[in-house]
């Protein structure tokens, strides 16, 4: 009896660990690959070098793509946080009818396949001549980031005691003062976390970008186009930079979200 349960315990450990390994394998492989000196994707790398990092930083097209990515991510996440956090406040504290329907509408871009959102916006923006403009691309990314901001901020606002707001108002603060001096400072960590989430979503986005961006290149779009054509080891360097970027920003966001009282928020 004891032998059997020890065996099953051992088996669970083995299977669980193997699946975890499968999950992490792509990340574990791509990082050492990026420091390879070889022209091919041989693993393990024959010797180490930084040539693929040079080939990224010395290529003006990659740098231009990085600038577009950063600009679009910055603009779209900022708009998403401005609109989304206000909407979250209205949904949580509001009393108007149809809040649940509106909430579902805000979250719909998560459920609707991204390729459909991309296609619908493609046809729509083409009508207004916004197809292929940075503005159109920013609009597309804002729509994808907005639901996550609404979700996270609704949790944050729910966990903020409404009586603190009421106390401020009853002590003579105006609405604007209450927002500026009580609510926003208290929600700041969550707001920053929501901003980072929206930023990462935009920064990694491929599908909507392929449909809407026209001649503009972002890092993921350029990566995708190169990957479909041929195997270019420069991508390993970019992938490693992206992993580092994600680890740092998501660590920061998780820390901020925790400080803001939003526990274990996951995409």
């Amino acid at each position, binding site marked *: 009896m004891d032998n059997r349960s020890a065996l099953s315990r051992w088996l669970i450990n083995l299977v669980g660990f193997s699946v*975890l390994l499968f999950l992490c394998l792509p990340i574990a492989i791509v990082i050492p690959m990026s420091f390879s000196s070889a022209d091919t994707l041989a693993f393990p790398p024959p010797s180490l070098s930084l040539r693929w990092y040079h080939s990224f930083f010395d290529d003006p097209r990659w740098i231009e793509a990085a600038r577009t990515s950063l600009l679009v991510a910055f603009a779209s996440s900022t708009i998403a946080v401005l609109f989304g956090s206000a909407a979250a406040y*209205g949904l949580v504290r509001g009393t108007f009818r149809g809040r649940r329907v509106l909430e579902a509408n805000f979250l719909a*871009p998560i459920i609707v396949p991204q390729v459909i959102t991309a296609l619908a916006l493609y046809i*729509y923006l083409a009508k207004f001549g916004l197809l292929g403009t940075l503005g159109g691309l920013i609009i597309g990314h804002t*729509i994808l980031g907005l639901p996550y901001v609404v979700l996270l901020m609704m949790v944050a606002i729910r966990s903020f005691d409404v009586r603190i707001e009421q106390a401020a108002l009853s002590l003579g603060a105006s609405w604007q003062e209450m927002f500026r001096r009580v609510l926003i400072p208290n929600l700041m960590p969550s707001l920053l976390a929501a901003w980072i989430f929206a930023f990462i979503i935009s920064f990694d986005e491929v599908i909507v970008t392929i449909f809407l961006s026209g001649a503009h290149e972002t890092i993921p779009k350029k990566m*995708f186009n190169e990957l479909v054509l041929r195997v270019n080891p420069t991508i390993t360097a970019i992938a490693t930079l992206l992993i580092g970027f*994600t680890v740092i920003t998501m660590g920061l966001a998780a820390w901020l979200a925790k400080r803001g009282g939003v526990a274990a928020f996951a995409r």
Partner: protein
Amino acid sequence: MTELASAIPRDNERRGLRLPGGLLQVTPAAVFILLLFNIPLLLMLSWSVGTGDEPLKYFAALARGSVYMKVLGNTIYIALLTTLACCILGYPLAYWMWSLSPRRQMLVLALVVLTFWISILVRTYSWIVVLGNDGVVNRVLRWLGITETSVPFLYNQFGVIVGTTNVLLPFLVLPLFAAMLKLDRRLLQAAESMGASQATIFFRIFLPLTIPALAAGSILVFILTLGFFITPAILGGGRVPMIANMLDLLINRMPRWETAAAISTVLLVLTLLFYAAYQWIEKKSRI
């Protein structure tokens, strides 16, 4: 004190919110999503409806066109296999995580969440290094003398399913693990104290109580695979067409917007149906 508390809401009302509370704050986002998401989506749906006496002609063309039905069937097939693979791999992983000590649990959870947030592009790309003709797996197989030539893991359905499973596994594991954590451990202790074996406890208590969460996660994975684009494009090498890739072709290569709109409508209806099922199961699993 109670007097004060009841006085405060009235005080708020007196301060003169002319609109019902909260409406002012939701307006910008609501206008934004209405103008730039709802209306475009409705317009696209209207594109799929033909004019004149044959309103469903594009859908009829879809049903007749063997290519479209083949891609649709292929997509559903891949989505089913991916869902199955995620269940088979995801359940043991979630169970293992649940059985770990709190400190190890945190570490493993952090790793799973991390993979969740790493760019899909990066996670897909790595499989070329792992499974390619000159990749890690093939080199090990050759070194062991199992095969002489490279095994073609990539640019076929197998490669696509490995990629989608890898990307979507956290979507199943994270909610499943959360459901396991919520499970009342006293139920298991009670069974144990009454002499049930570990296998009995697992199959008669633990598994039935976590099946709804597994079902909900499976539907989520299924829906997400239906709309997948990046992984089939990179790991399928154009040989494993899925709906999203076909849409890209129809819009960006050979402008046939009406056909694309009709396909999108089908995909959207499928997604919403399965999402309704997901919501229903998710609600049940919480009770």
